[in-house]
């Protein structure tokens, strides 16, 4: 058997395994919207009947709206600030002669692998020691730490992906560094910026641990959701809320991922240098 045929040979065992894996991964999530329309406060089969009562309950409950608004108030500034810092970091990493470049990148990416729990506890200890009152500001600060690695990871390939000679050409045609950034660099990394905004907003919106440790009187949506789990009669509306979160954050993530890949391979103007 020739090599390409061998490589392209369909492997039934692996296919079955892949399908089982995906089902195990996403099946529990599919249950959430299913039971949020079920006419019973207990999550169990058989389903009893179709109802939109739980969604109606959500609509009338003021704390839901308050915590939703709190999440947006945290998420928007966090995504903008994190993306701005990410742009600056990615630009500096790719353009300037940074000593110990890979060490810097590792350091920025570290919050991805350090448990958020540790970060949360450490921040809480530090803030209470400093006498900073817990509020949405402290939550936002925690979220910034969580989001920054995602911003840098989204933006870095963008900055690496385009040809340095484009910026040189801009300088050659008379533009200084500032105008070169606005006229060449910014439009070319734009998809990365949009992707980073969407991604970090979603992460902040969903984040629980930091918010749990660092929030004061106002709570974000995931915290509110968690507090409602104590009341069994509230559970169906928690499911309804979770369904809505899936409905909104999944497309956001998918759009973000799609945009971040947009045009990344269209830059064919890479050249060899003699």
């Amino acid at each position, binding site marked *: 058997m020739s090599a390409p045929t061998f490589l392209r040979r369909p492997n039934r065992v692996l296919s079955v395994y892949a399908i089982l894996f995906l089902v195990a991964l996403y099946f529990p999530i599919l249950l959430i919207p299913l039971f949020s329309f079920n006419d019973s406060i207990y999550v169990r089969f058989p389903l009893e009947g179709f109802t939109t009562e739980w969604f109606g309950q959500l609509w009338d409950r003021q704390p839901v709206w308050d915590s939703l608004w709190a999440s947006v108030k945290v998420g928007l500034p966090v995504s903008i600030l994190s993306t701005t810092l990410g742009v600056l970091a990615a630009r500096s990493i790719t353009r300037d002669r940074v000593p110990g470049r890979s060490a810097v990148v590792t350091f920025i990416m570290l919050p991805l692998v350090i448990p958020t729990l540790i970060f949360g506890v450490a921040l809480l200890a530090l803030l209470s020691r400093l006498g900073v009152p817990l509020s949405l500001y402290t939550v936002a600060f925690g979220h910034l730490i969580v989001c920054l690695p995602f911003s840098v990871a989204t933006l870095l390939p963008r900055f690496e992906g385009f040809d340095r*000679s484009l910026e040189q*050409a801009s300088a*050659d*045609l*008379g533009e200084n560094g500032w*105008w070169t950034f606005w*006229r060449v660099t910014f439009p*070319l990394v734009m998809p990365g910026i949009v992707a980073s905004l969407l991604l970090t907003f979603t992460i902040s919106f969903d984040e629980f641990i930091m918010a749990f440790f660092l929030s004061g009187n106002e709570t974000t949506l995931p915290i509110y959701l968690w507090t409602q789990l104590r009341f069994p009669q509230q559970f169906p509306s928690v499911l309804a809320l979770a369904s809505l979160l899936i409905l909104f954050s999944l497309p956001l993530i998918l759009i973000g991922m799609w945009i971040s890949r947009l045009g990344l391979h269209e830059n*064919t103007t890479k*050249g060899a240098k003699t």
Partner: protein
Amino acid sequence: MNGNDAYISIRNVSKFFGTFQAIDDVSLDIAGGEFFSLLGASGSGKTTLLSMLAGFEPATQGDIFIDGQSMDSVPPNHRPVNTVFQNYAIFPHLNVRDNIAYGLRKAQLPRAKRYEMVDEMLELIKLPGYGTRKAHELSGGQRQRIALARALILRPKVLLLDEPLGALDKQLREQMQLELRLLQRKVGITFVFVTHDQEEALALSDRIAVMQGGRVLQVDTPAGLYESPNSRAVASFIGNMNFFPGKLRRNGTAGAVVETEGLGSLRLPQAPNGQPDGARVQVALRPEKFDLSVTKPDDRPSVEGRLANAAYMGERSHFYIAIDGREEPVAVSAQNRLRFGAPPGSEGKLWLSWSADAVVVLDAE
């Protein structure tokens, strides 16, 4: 100003990258309106020298003057030069018109005037009506022209070209060479052209600087470089060359004699400058300067040889002639003027002859 009419004056410029010396004490004068080429293999420093002219790399030592102005500490965006990059660096997010008009922002022209200038440029590069094309819809040759237009619209004092034809296929390259030369005459701007392609440099340039290892070996006209190279490195980089080691004998008259290995005693009508009597030299003769004949020619110097190898190239053939006193056969190039001409000397012995004034005498290595 430094007392001559040079438009670009490169004065004792050196460039170090860490401990590596990319440019070694280069001085060059380029006249206004000249088509000047920097020719060398990769790593010869030609591209580094061009980046220093553009302002992307500062010189470690020395200074560059353009139109009498020192370029030391003048950033790229304030230099009176524009560059056509090797990969053209067409902005992928802008259409052709916005690419060409990119450098006009500071001129603060009304839009109509700007578009008019772009249309003029498109006319000049023979791409009229291409203004609204997207960057990714362009072919290599079109990109190259647009990169030219984008630079020329700013009417720079000097246009720098970094191997702009390297990415094009052979036919297109030859066509663009011709157009580039015509364009340069038309706009009258000084062109500094970097290439590793010796044929391209010969075809386009008014003068060429041959570079190797960060140094300029020789600056001359194309014919000057080809016919009177000053070193073995230049002679073998441009075209093909046969070298014969020998010894120079001055006989008190204007002429001289070189006793060579292979070609015997060569009488030179004009003695070369420099080398003393008895100096070890090498004689260089281009393959096309030889003639092959079956009988011994009586009016020119000749040696007897034997055909060792031949290669048919279409318009010309290459013959390799083995001669006594020399290990390596002599390369001879002859035009195939007859349609059914038999290769000379295929039946055995033949005579290799040359004219005395084709002989170039170089220092021995």
